[in-house]
């Protein structure tokens, strides 16, 4: 089945070569980072995590969102998703691979990464994150692959896949919960120190993941003739709408507690985000853009007439994705370090090499995803043709 990824149109190959080029550029900058150290990034003593860890956090959400296809189909027998559950699983596979790469490039001593396994530390949330992420990767590779190859041979999937699929549901929740716990358990970082962190992560994940899947389905429909089906897409849109509403609600709940209680340590990071602190306002424009995009997208997604128009739906999904990427992939991680434990406000600016490495990993993830989807399409279109 793998060979199917090597057969494609001219457009397919142009896209693959483009992605490969971005990967190579990123890789060459990574070699430089290996040589010089993490000093070539914008991270500092005060803001010691940046773009890499933020992308990791965002992508864990994208990975977890596969469950929004699995659950309706396998638990509620929602037939319309039958055709596309594999798309969710493959998206999860490529997202988890990106997560692992982002953690890896963030390490100061990558050659020692095995120390996490050699000296297992069950008290460390990062240890558990490694456990759940690698488990999730494995589950999704196996289930996605087996289901697709059985489809191709037109035989029912073997009985042992079902329990694995059921297992993947709580497992998906666990990857994002554990990732939230990395942040929510640190005593001095008041911005992250909130129990709403895990629910917020999950809600935003279940909005951004389905939004991305809708976009992929619309692109495939346009470019390849594979149609996921109107009802599948509309249901995904409804899921994204509910999740986005929950995500916005959770943010508001947090804002209430922070500002009504008036505890300065809790207020300051939020003031930094939305108004600027001590004259530092790097993220203010971004955060308001994120808020506006979320509000607009929510309006479009809950209004049925708008949602049913696929052009509007596509725009709304792009808005959801960008809005939540800003929230998690930009604002969430950096702001945890502002102000610093010694009440200094240090801004963070990602550097060129850092952005190139980040884009390289995104391109690598998209490359894997494109090839997996190409295989999926080949199998599905073959069957449609018959």
């Amino acid at each position, binding site marked *: 089945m793998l060979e199917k990824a090597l057969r494609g149109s001219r457009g397919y190959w142009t896209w693959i070569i483009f992605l490969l080029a971005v990967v190579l550029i990123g890789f060459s900058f990574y070699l430089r980072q290996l040589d010089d150290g993490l000093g070539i990034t914008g991270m500092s003593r005060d803001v010691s995590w940046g773009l890499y860890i933020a992308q990791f956090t965002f992508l864990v959400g994208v990975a977890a969102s596969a469950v929004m296809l699995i659950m309706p189909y396998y638990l509620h027998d929602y037939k319309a998703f039958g055709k596309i559950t594999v798309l969710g699983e493959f998206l999860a596979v490529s997202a988890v691979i990106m997560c692992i790469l982002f953690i890896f490039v963030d390490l100061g001593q990558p050659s020692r990464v095995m120390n996490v396994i050699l000296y297992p530390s069950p008290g460390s949330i990062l240890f558990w994150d490694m456990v759940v992420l690698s488990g999730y990767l494995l589950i999704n590779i196996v289930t996605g692959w087996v289901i697709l190859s059985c489809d191709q041979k037109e035989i029912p999937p073997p009985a042992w896949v079902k329990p694995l699929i059921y297992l993947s549901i709580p497992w998906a929740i666990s990857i994002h919960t554990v990732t939230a716990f990395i942040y929510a358990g640190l005593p001095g970082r008041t911005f992250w120190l909130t129990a709403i962190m895990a629910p917020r992560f999950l809600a935003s994940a279940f909005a951004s993941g389905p939004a991305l899947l809708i976009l992929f389905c619309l692109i495939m429909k346009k470019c390849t003739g594979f149609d996921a089906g109107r009802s599948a897409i509309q249901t995904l849109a409804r899921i994204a709408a509910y999740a986005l509403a929950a995500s916005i609600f959770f943010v508001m709940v947090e804002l209430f507690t922070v500002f009504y209680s008036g505890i300065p340590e809790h207020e300051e990071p939020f003031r930094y985000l939305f108004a600027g602190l001590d004259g530092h306002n790097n993220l203010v424009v971004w955060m308001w853009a994120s808020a506006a995009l979320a509000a607009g997208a929510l309006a479009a997604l809950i209004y049925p007439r708008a949602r049913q128009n696929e052009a509007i739906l596509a725009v709304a999904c792009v808005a959801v994705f960008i809005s939540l990427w800003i929230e998690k992939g930009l604002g969430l991680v950096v702001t945890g370090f502002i102000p610093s434990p*010694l009440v200094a406000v240090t801004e963070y600016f990602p550097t060129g090499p850092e952005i190139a490495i980040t884009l390289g990993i995104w391109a690598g993830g998209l490359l894997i995803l494109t090839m997996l989807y190409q295989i999926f399409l080949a199998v599905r279109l073959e069957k449609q043709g018959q």
Partner: protein
Amino acid sequence: MTTSRREFLKIAGASALTLITFPVFPVGAKENVRIPGQDFTSAKPLTARRWAMAIDTSKCSKDCTDCIVACHAIHNVPDFGNPKDEVKWIWQEPFAAVFPDNQHAYSGQAIQKMRLPVLCNHCANPSCVRVCPTQATFKRPDGIVMMDYHRCIGCRLCMAGCPYGARSMNFHDPRPFIAKINPDFPTRTKGVVEKCNFCQERLAKGLLPACVLACKEKALVFGDLEDPLSDIRSLLKERFNLRRKAHLGTRPQIYYIV
């Protein structure tokens, strides 16, 4: 990237050094050495059930950097020359930054102008140890929170976990940025985190911490908290003192006498 042979030998040498110093851990050492005077030295390792430090802020002058200079020279702390990549083990901060909860507009000039030494608090319940995925940061039975520079993967979770900003990352190879390398203490590689180690290498040789000895005003008092007869105990009994962010439950072991 390949590790050159030279680099490997350096690492091997440094590892051997750690191996030599480790067996003198005061694990299970029953006898508690008291420290009568600050110039006390002995060939016998100094041991304690819980090391701690009291800082008499009234004695600490804001223009003096003796403790900082001594510590950073002995421990091969690099000077990268910019605040972004800065590595520091002990340094000075204004009162308002050290005790944000205790400052207000009406405190006197003396308090507002005050600059206090800050360093790792060697917390009794250290969040940095809890979060480290490799146990490269660990707590010894005598309370010293230490780093294994050969195990650290540079994930910086401990930097996020420390509520005091006590930790620094080597964002570059530190060696070219060390003014004069002290051959008795290992240098670090790029990509690992470091911080104050309460001079465990000196305690093992019977020497008090470098900062304590460097301070001419004797503002830093180091000793065993579990020993009721120690200087630090009587100081803490008699003089009012504060700990940084004690409400976080990390149980910091640096006591500021104000």
